[in-house]
């Protein structure tokens, strides 16, 4: 029964991974930009939540309402200044620029908050759980994370499928030059995509801050998880990213059950196996433009 429990916990953990990976998936999908600062930006979100709780006394979950527009604004600025310029250079430029950005962000956070681990306190909620069967208990907080992850992915999917701007984003992803011939300003679309991506990773950051302790360097691990979720799911597919997050989550918790000292080993092995046997991921985009 402890295995069933591990699977359930893993599926819930997948919600957090999906939340972390959704923005990465969106940015890569829309502008083929590999954002190596994504993990560090999640931690920026976590610190924003932390500072808001400390300074204003906002309830931890209410900070999300403030973190979303702040991160979106950072994303818009970042894209319209630094990243749009980098995208116009050769292919390696965006990777180097986002790598450099990650280093800068880490060091700024280190200066501001020292290397001490922090976390966002939610009191009793952290340990609250619902007993399903004698052996399986679902934590209220992991369940919330999972539900938010699914809602965010579903909302983003609907936005891309149904709205005018969402269609413009997909058109730009398919063929940037043809999209400009439709009157679409691709720089604006890119800025919007990054704003959305950072808003989502900001939510993920607050959940990370509540779930666990973090410091300036915690982002690296999450960046790897986010990449793995995106690649397992298939590049460009949001539902794939959710599935990828859940597979990764289950592999982590089941792996921890097998080898308590190295829980993420199994997750990495699953990722490697997918990379070898299904290099396009589980749900590759059907169309290759």
């Amino acid at each position: 029964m402890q295995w069933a429990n591990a699977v359930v916990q893993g599926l819930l953990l997948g919600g957090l991974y999906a939340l972390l990976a959704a923005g990465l998936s969106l940015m890569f999908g829309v502008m083929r930009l590999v954002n190596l600062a994504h993990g560090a930006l999640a931690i920026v979100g976590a610190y924003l939540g932390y500072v808001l709780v400390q300074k204003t006394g906002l309830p931890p979950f209410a900070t999300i309402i403030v973190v979303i527009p702040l991160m979106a604004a950072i994303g818009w600025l970042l894209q319209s200044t630094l990243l749009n310029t980098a995208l116009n250079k050769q292919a390696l430029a965006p990777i180097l620029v986002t790598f450099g950005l990650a280093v800068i962000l880490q060091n700024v956070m280190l200066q501001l908050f020292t290397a001490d681990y922090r976390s966002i306190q939610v009191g009793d909620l952290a340990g609250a759980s619902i007993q399903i069967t004698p052996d399986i208990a679902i934590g209220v907080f992991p369940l919330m994370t999972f539900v938010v992850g699914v809602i965010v992915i579903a909302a983003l999917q609907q936005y891309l499928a149904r709205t005018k701007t969402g269609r413009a984003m997909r058109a730009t992803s398919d063929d940037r030059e043809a999209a400009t011939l439709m009157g679409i300003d691709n720089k604006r679309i890119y800025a919007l995509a990054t704003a959305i991506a950072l808003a989502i990773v900001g939510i993920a950051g607050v959940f990370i801050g509540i779930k666990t302790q973090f410091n300036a360097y915690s982002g690296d691990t999450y960046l790897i998880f986010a990449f793995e979720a995106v690649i397992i799911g298939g590049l460009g597919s949001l539902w794939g990213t959710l599935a990828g997050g859940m597979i990764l989550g289950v592999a982590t918790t089941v792996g921890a059950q097998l080898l308590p000292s190295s829980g993420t080993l199994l997750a990495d092995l699953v990722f490697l196996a997918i990379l070898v046997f299904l290099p396009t991921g589980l749900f590759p985009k059907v169309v290759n433009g």
Partner: protein
Amino acid sequence: MALLEVDSIDVFYGDFQAIYGMSLSVDEGETLAVIGANGAGKSTLLKTIAGLNSPRSGDVRFDGTSIATLPPHKRVPLGIALTPEGRRMFPSMTIEENLLVGAHKARPGPWNLESVYATFPLISDRRSRLANNASGGEQQAAAIGRALMCNPRLLLLDEVSLGLAPVVVQQIYASLPTITAQGTTVLVVEQDVMHALRVADRVQCLLEGRTVLEGTPSELTRDQIASAYFGI
């Protein structure tokens, strides 16, 4: 007054000059066909008008205003729409979604989903098909429809007949009078001279980046066109 004036433009790809001091003008409501062999500079000309290339010298004026430095997405709201060579449909989107994207910066006018489907019966029952899975003819019809969705004053058509079966080319060209009847000015680029002559009020023949012959279809003889086309 001319709606579009191209004033002695030079266009380069790196060191290679594709257009040499070319000029042309199109009046409102007129249909101009630009013909010429491969490499004559036809597509480069259209791309320069749409804003994908910028001329190194010379000017492009639309409705009296210079647009030579305007990026392509700012030319669409003025009423310039290009159906690019190779159609360039958005492959992961359905035909209908492609048309809707065409209306991203739509001006008021007669064109909407309904009137596009009525003009191109070829795609009216293919609305929910992915563009990637549509036939060449369906893609071409949809690409023209997509350009119309913004209600352009000037429609630029690049190589409509390329790679399509003659019967499909017929069907697509049959829709052109419906478009010009709305008062839309059309600049069509073609290798298929016969089709171009049939629809055009005026013809301009290019050879290696320069205009070598101009006139109305009725005043030009077959031999004149043949020698201008091939440069013999």
